[in-house]
């Protein structure tokens, strides 16, 4: 090569320029693929079995309380003009509902993922920036101003916050014993601790920070008095508010309302008769939606979902079957490239 190096115009004789870089040339031959498929298949079947059993063991109790049917206890509340209506749903558990039990509310045919709906919020406001309290961003329209006062928190999402409340009673010897919901830790940790911030109090008063603004049109209470029982659970850091603000992906969704963990119920809900008292505020019939509540316990894979387990089982067996088919084909026709494999 040295002698050729004398030429000025001689191209560089490097592996790269000569397209001779050392290369690994994998071949997916049957000899590799058949064991691979078997292995994957078996692993998938294993995971699938685990998923399926786990999912089977998750208990779910769903109660629809929309009140469309006249026989439904909530029927009288579902009318449009009725305010402050309460209704009750009874149900019974025949065995212990193992805890921790999670309590969800679910809406259907509700498009939280609507685009115009989704952009209708002001993240600056929600991060406690008071300059945006008086001048909400225009995306919040038509919930930007109300009676010439800026709305805080502005926008469709906040405005349409779910405002049904629930109380669960266990019927013990004919008397009602309230089962407490733990409303803490139902929102994402980062939402609660970083993304959403309350405005700093003015003159020691949290409410004063909201001076000059008005509450969203559909709200009964202002943001700073959402939870009268817990000062820290107010403003934008209200857990229910945070849960609501994380938009659901699909029109049929459920959101976490609370957990049942306290005291007597740390093992779960014992068998017995229960009454769910619903303060029915949230209209859904106008757009053909339904409302429901869900009691569910969770596992390492989250809530009950048969899909994943079944999918793993199917794909796992498919892989094994294909490996067998390939083996038969291979044994019969002997792939030509396997002489040296």
């Amino acid at each position, binding site marked *: 090569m040295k002698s050729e190096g004398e030429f000025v*115009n001689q191209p560089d004789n490097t592996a790269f320029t000569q397209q001779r870089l050392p*290369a*690994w040339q994998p071949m997916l031959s049957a000899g590799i693929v058949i064991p691979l498929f078997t292995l994957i298949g078996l692993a998938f079947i294993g995971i699938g079995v685990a998923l399926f059993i786990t999912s089977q063991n998750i208990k779910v109790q769903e109660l629809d309380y929309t009140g469309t049917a006249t026989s439904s206890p909530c029927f009288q509340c579902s009318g449009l003009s009725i305010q402050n209506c309460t209704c009750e749903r009874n149900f019974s558990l025949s065995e212990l509902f193992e805890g921790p039990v999670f309590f969800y509310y679910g809406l259907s045919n509700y498009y939280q993922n609507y685009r115009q709906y989704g952009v209708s919020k002001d993240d600056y406001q929600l991060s406690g920036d008071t300059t945006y309290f008086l001048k909400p961003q225009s995306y919040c329209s038509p919930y930007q101003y109300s009676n010439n006062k800026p709305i805080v928190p502005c926008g469709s999402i906040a405005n349409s916050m779910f405002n049904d409340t629930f109380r669960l009673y266990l019927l013990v010897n004919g008397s009602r014993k309230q089962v407490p919901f733990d409303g803490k830790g139902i929102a994402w940790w980062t939402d609660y601790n970083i993304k959403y911030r309350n405005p700093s109090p003015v003159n020691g008063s949290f409410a004063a920070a909201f001076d000059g603004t008005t509450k969203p049109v559909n709200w009964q209470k202002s943001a700073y008095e959402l939870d009268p029982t817990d000062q820290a659970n107010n403003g934008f850091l209200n857990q229910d508010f945070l849960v609501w603000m994380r938009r659901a992906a699909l029109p049929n969704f459920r959101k976490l309302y609370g957990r049942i963990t306290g005291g007597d119920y740390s093992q779960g809900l014992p068998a017995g008769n229960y009454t769910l008292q619903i303060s029915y505020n949230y209209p859904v019939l106008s757009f*053909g939606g339904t409302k429901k509540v869900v009691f*569910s316990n969770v596992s390492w894979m989250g809530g009950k979902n048969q899909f994943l387990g079944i999918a793993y089982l199917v794909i796992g067996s498919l892989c094994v079957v294909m490996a067998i088919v*390939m083996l038969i084909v291979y044994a019969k026709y002997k792939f030509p490239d396997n002489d040296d494999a």
Partner: protein
Amino acid sequence: MSTAVRGRVCVQASGFGGDEKRVDSRTIYVGHRPGPATEAFIPPKFCDNRIVSSKYTVWNFLPKNLFEQFRRIANFYFLIIFLVQVIVDTPTSPVTSGLPLFFVITVTAIKQGYEDWLRHKADNEVNKYPVIVLEDGRKESEKIKVGDIVEVMEDETFPCDLILLQSSRDDDTCFVTTASLDGESNHKTHYTVPDTEKDLQSLSATIECEQPQPDLYKFVGRMYIYKTGQDPAVRSLGPENLLLKGATLKNTKKIYGVAVYTGMETKMALNYQGKSQKRSAVEKSINAFLLVYLCILISKAVVCTTLKYVWQSQFGQDEPWYNQKTQKEKDTYVYLKMFTDFLSFMVLFNFIIPVSMYVTVEMQKFLGSFFITWDKDFFDPEIQEGALVNTSDLNEELGQVEYVFTDKTGTLTQNNMEFIECCIDGFQYKNTDSMSELDGFCVTDGPVSKLQQKAGLEKEELFLRALCLCHTVQVKEAGPDEIDEIDGVQVDGLAAGLSQPDEERGFIASSPDEVALVKGAMKHGFTFLGLENKTMKIRNWQNDTEIYELLHVLNFDPVRRRMSVIVRNKSGETLLFCKGADSSIFPRVRPEEVDRIRMHVERNATDGYRTLCVAYKQLSPEEYAVADAGLRDARLALQDREEKLMVVYNQVETEMSLIGATAVEDRLQEEAAETMEALQGAGMKVWVLTGDKMETAKSTCYACRLFQRGTELLELTVRTLEDGGRKREERLHELLLDYHKKAVQDAPPVKAGVTRSWSNSNQEYGFIIDGATLSLVMNPSPDANSSRYKNLFLQICQNCTAVLCCRMAPLQKAQIVKLVKNSKGSPITLSIGDGANDVSMILEAHVGIGIKGKEGRQAVRNSDYAIPKLKHLKKLLLAHGHLYYVRIAHLVQYFFYKNLCFILPQFLYQFFCGYSQQPLYDAAYLTMYNICFTSMPILAYSLLEQHIAIEILLDNATLYREIAKNAMLRWGPFLYWTVLGIYQGLLFFFGVRYLFSNPALQDNGQVFGNWSYGTIVFTVLVFTVTLKLALDTRHWTWINHFVIWGSLAFYVFFSFFWGGIIWPFLRQQRLYFVFANMLSSVSAWLVIILLILLSLLPDILLVVLRKPRGPHARKKKKCQSSAGSSQSSRVSIRPLLMRTFSDESNTVI
């Protein structure tokens, strides 16, 4: 670009010249002095001497460049999308499409601006060059006006086209080299206009010449010289008087010339034409696919818009209470809303046609072409150059070639002529001295002994004299006088130390044949000493110097196929020597002389030699006078000079007597036969198009193994046509039908993929046609069924393994290429040639390849690719072309695929979000998907992939057939990729959809929202798409590893980073900790793994079940073929022609 420039020139010319000046000639007043004959001297205006090759000025750069860029349909499309995003309320911000578009436009603009700046610089250098004008003294070159008398010193280039008036040389000549114009580096002699006054200041003359035209070698004009009290003297002007802009003065101290054409009207500027854009088949495929995707895009948008309004008409869905419309929305008309909705959907789905594909394709082509220039196998130590890529747009076309049109001389053969033997008066004289092998027969000492005394001494002398005189060769001078003769040892010793100085005298000629002949004569003892002052000196056997006065040169032209000189010897005899092709000489000599020599000529021709016949004639003074007058008259003619000269030439060159014939060998190029064999093995049809005569060309074809022993030749030449003695057309018709029956109807259908050796049982056909017959076929007389001939001809040719077209004019070469190019199935054609006569076919073919040969650089400059040797064509096509095609085809398919499965989930999501144009993915993902996450792996793949190793590709020419006919970009593979994309898109979306039927995916019971949904889909998408490429990669270099795993790592890193910070400039922190939260969910992990595997499953199966192709499968074949090829290469060390013809020649005749 040239059209723009040209356009302005036209405007100027017509604008200045006025209507009445738009005639065939222009009048130039030398030194701006009016001739006495003109009553009213109006100085005519011509354009100035400024050369403008640049495209933009500072002022019009921005608008013009932008305009040109947005004329590209893709850029325009993206501009529209961008504008829609700006104007209409759309789901994605204008940045998502504006940023990439801006990037692409800026990069292109910078590149074009830089190129134009270079052109400006070059223009300025030329335009500001100081020149001396006799009237005005020193001034800038751009200010030269037509009529100025310009002084040019040695080694300077001419600033404009000049008529040579005065030279510092005594013999009224000057030498120029036109290397920068046509690449011919030899010195050309130009002559002053005879009898002009020595004092140019007082010269009063006008020049009448034709309007500017681009032909470098044509010029007609007349010069009127006025002297007081006399009639104006008229001198004819020809190309030998015209000094072209761009040429360089050599060997002459200084000259004066009058400017006739300036600036953009010079022949150089008129020849400076931008090549027409060639578009590759791949690009056409891309456009077709683009159309399909555009249809998909539009139908998606239409479907979504329609469904949106259908859905909204249902109860409660138009405006649910939680999502009320703004006042503005309520006020807009429903049809306008529909339209903006449609546009919004278009914007949402526009990523299906990615702006980055064009960038990637261009980048791939640009960077990929470096591998051709870098390839050291293309480096030729002889000329110290490697391959040259003029257009990188056609890289992949090299892998698609179906027809190869090759020139013969200089391409198949070396154009390195060697005088082999001659025949004098029917006796054969073989000259073995020049051969490398020693022959005892040859006695080395003394020139006489080299010739066996067979013919008379006188005849021999006459023959050698003819060889010495009848040419246009120049002796390369070291100085004005023949120094090299005196101390030639020193001079030539430097140039070529090996041989005797006398034998290595530098001869320069436009055709290497002439040099070979002069050298041949020299070997036999007659040395041409040089031409000076119209006297030719030769040294004869007795070492005496004979002096001849050169009276006329009857130049060579391809129509006559001969040239003559008229000389007068010392004794006052006027002699005409003529040499030329046998067919053009034989009818002009006495028939009884012909037979003795014809045998030799034909035998020589079948041996693959180039033969020339030499004849002479003694002119009586009367005859000469007539000829002289005729020649002078014709030369003075302003119009139809060519035709008139031809007539005179034909009159003079008659009744000559034949002296002998010469045979010159043109050696085959290195590995010409192997290359041709490989091309044929690769399924290409090789057509040889040559201007040479049939026998020679045919033998070259045999030597190159284009024709083989078993090949049945179908001849369609003047000879076969005249057999029957009937009308040519009838005979042509009959032959065509006959051949058609033979080659097309009776032949079993040729299956693709069958190599030559296997198909030996079938009869192979070779087809031979000559120029005259071809023009009959192409332009038959009107009554004949014309198009039928063409079709028959094409069909026959397409069924032949090789076609030889001989005696082609350059234009006919292009005609044939065009004919094939436009035939059914529009096959991809490739032309390869080295000379100016190949330029037309190089430009015409899909891919033009120039050989950096001896006939100048014109072919190279007009080619798309230039290689030093023919043998390099094999690697260029079989290895580079094949790889490029596979790479780019995969690149294109992959791009469409990855964008289809990128956008399909977004489309499906519309069905679940009330058709509200909610994007599934975050804007950052939308923008970065094509730019960052998935672009580098495919680019690396498209640059480095070798699905089959280069050696194997070279050894198995048949592999080329696997990708023939755009195999990887036809609708079949496209459908496969599209189906794959749809399958994966459906899988991504619905897999996650079913997972989200319960959005509580974490063990703390918290639920995921819509951005988590999108991020899971996107993660699956990025991994699947990248791993799909990894599955397809057969050649994993460290770069591939780095880029593939790197992009995946980058995606993960970016997602963490993007979601890990509250970005102050974002108005919505959508992705804040979404990715991290996703990874904390076991279910999300499981679904990602499941979906990736499921998406790739069909591909893995396909890879396994498909017939194995790749290094393992090829191993055995390689062993066999390498044994074969090594054998054949060993054989080829012997001179090819010699060997082949001893076997083959018997089958030729």
